[in-house]
């Protein structure tokens, strides 16, 4: 039943994107509403998503169950025993009215992820290098260069959809997925990079591993990374990995 993490390409910031002038509401079944801010994967639209999410988390709507932010929208579950669809949609509309449309002031944290690249932790580092006609060290340099953006968390507990990887280290998925990828593995699939917070099957090319625990059930906020965070990878040695 496991689904593949979809393979997205993330547009560069300068590309034109279509942000809706006003957020659109659509029912999802009889217990949820989707609030959409645009059609494309872009920083501008995701910024609106985050601004609305933070507004939602501070709101006191009696029927609100929970909100799940994604690239372009927020899906909000409600209790239909407390309100009907129209009533809940009206409450969301007024929340949208109170959300700044130019949300420049959204706080964003930077999460540093130490990674031990290559060796047994990154068995596909050589493949990614050869595929792009660069050295393994260059792959590491390119991977540790950008500020990545967490667009959303999904697919697995604490799994970040990161935007911002250079196309110079893009690589196709493995032909046959591995049955078990260890927690902390850092991988590349297409134009996307990610970190596996829990052990799971997967087809990504593995280039390294972090000693950080990205998902801890006992924490009040179990996922280390949250939508909107910035992420930086930095290389550490095997000895440093063991010490962490």
């Amino acid at each position, binding site marked *: 039943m496991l689904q593949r993490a979809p393979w997205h390409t993330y547009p560069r910031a300068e590309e034109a994107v279509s942000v809706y002038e006003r957020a659109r509401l659509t029912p999802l*079944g009889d217990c949820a509403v989707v609030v959409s801010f645009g059609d*494309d994967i872009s920083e501008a639209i995701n910024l609106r998503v985050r601004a609305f999410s933070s507004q939602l988390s501070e709101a006191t709507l009696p029927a609100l169950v*929970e*909100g799940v932010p994604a690239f372009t929208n927020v899906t909000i579950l409600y209790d239909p025993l407390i309100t009907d669809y129209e009533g809940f949609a009206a409450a969301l509309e007024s929340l949208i009215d109170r959300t700044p449309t130019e949300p420049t002031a959204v706080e964003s944290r930077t999460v540093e992820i130490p990674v031990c690249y290559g060796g047994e932790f990154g068995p596909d580092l050589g493949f990614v290098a050869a595929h792009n006609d660069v050295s393994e060290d260059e792959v590491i340099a390119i991977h540790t260069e950008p500020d990545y953006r967490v667009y959303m968390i*999904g697919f697995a507990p604490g799994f970040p959809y990161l935007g911002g990887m250079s196309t110079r280290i893009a690589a196709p998925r493995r032909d046959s997925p591995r049955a078990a990828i260890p927690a902390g593995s850092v991988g590349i699939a297409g134009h996307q990079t990610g970190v596996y917070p829990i052990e799971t099957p997967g087809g990504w090319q593995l280039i390294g591993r972090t000693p950080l625990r990205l998902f801890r059930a006992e924490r009040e906020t179990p996922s280390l990374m949250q939508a909107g965070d910035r992420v930086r990878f930095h290389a550490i040695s095997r000895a440093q990995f063991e010490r962490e």
Partner: protein
Amino acid sequence: VKVLAPGLLTTVQDLGRIGFGKDGVSPSGAMDREALRVANLLVDNGEGAAGLEITFEGPRIEFTTSTLVSVCGADLEPRIASAPLLGWCAALVQEGAVLEFGAARWGCRAYVAVAGGIDVPEVMHSRSTYLRAGIGGLEGRALRSDDELPLGRIGAAVQRIMATTAENLGPLPFALTSRRLRDAERLYTSGPIRFLRGPDWEMLDADDQSAFLGGTFRVSPESDRMGHRLRGPVLRSPAGAEMTSTAVITGTVQLPPGGEPIVLTADRQTTGGYPMIAQVIHADLGTVAQLRPGDEIRFEETTIEEAHRAIRHIEEVLDELRGVEERASSGP
């Protein structure tokens, strides 16, 4: 409670882990929520107490203390000391009694509630087992032989019911109380599964829309707590469509590239990238949970208003069991 044999897949479940979708955490919880809620109400637990979800082949469970127990949901032929135990009914069981199951006569998942609830530690505000992440329930896993499950404290009302029922004990190590839900079939739909159009319904062409509406699907053996895969008319229109990942919810009907729809259930992922063609209404999720591999499933479109009425109807059925305290004090 001691597990003598685990059965096919027996897990501790409550009503799920709510509020952690943004962290990528599945809700988990009972697949047939109403069956667990009724089972809990019958033994005077809160509706959200943790019980056991039993899948198709039941376990053998020994009660290490005298208590109240109820079995709801699928009829997996529950029995104690070879005598049948009535479903949807609270029973007093004596210390040492062993609950066993026989043939699966109806449905797929049965729920056992024990007075006080299964008292495993809460993880993220829930006792539900989330198998894929290995959290919740008993050590994040399905039950095994020799597991012992702690029980919560029982209240005065339960003790009164136990004391009164004990007078009816015969040679068998259990006795039924008068607490039962009549006509439990009111919680299920015997007709087609009702749905609302999903955000990507319009991606289906006219032929595929009528195939979904008029077709008969079967639940594939590859189904599990994450979802029911459906075999039947293959829907081709949006095959291979590249979607931007977005949240999915329980009951979402996704259409992966193979063209065979999937109905997402309790252990579903929180987000997905496949077209979302339909959404099963909340009130029919219990019926879906009781489908077995090979069972037929058909779909019928409905409206939000009708779907909300169906939810209220279920609450009215449960209302018959609420207000336990008053009824218990008047004696069974």
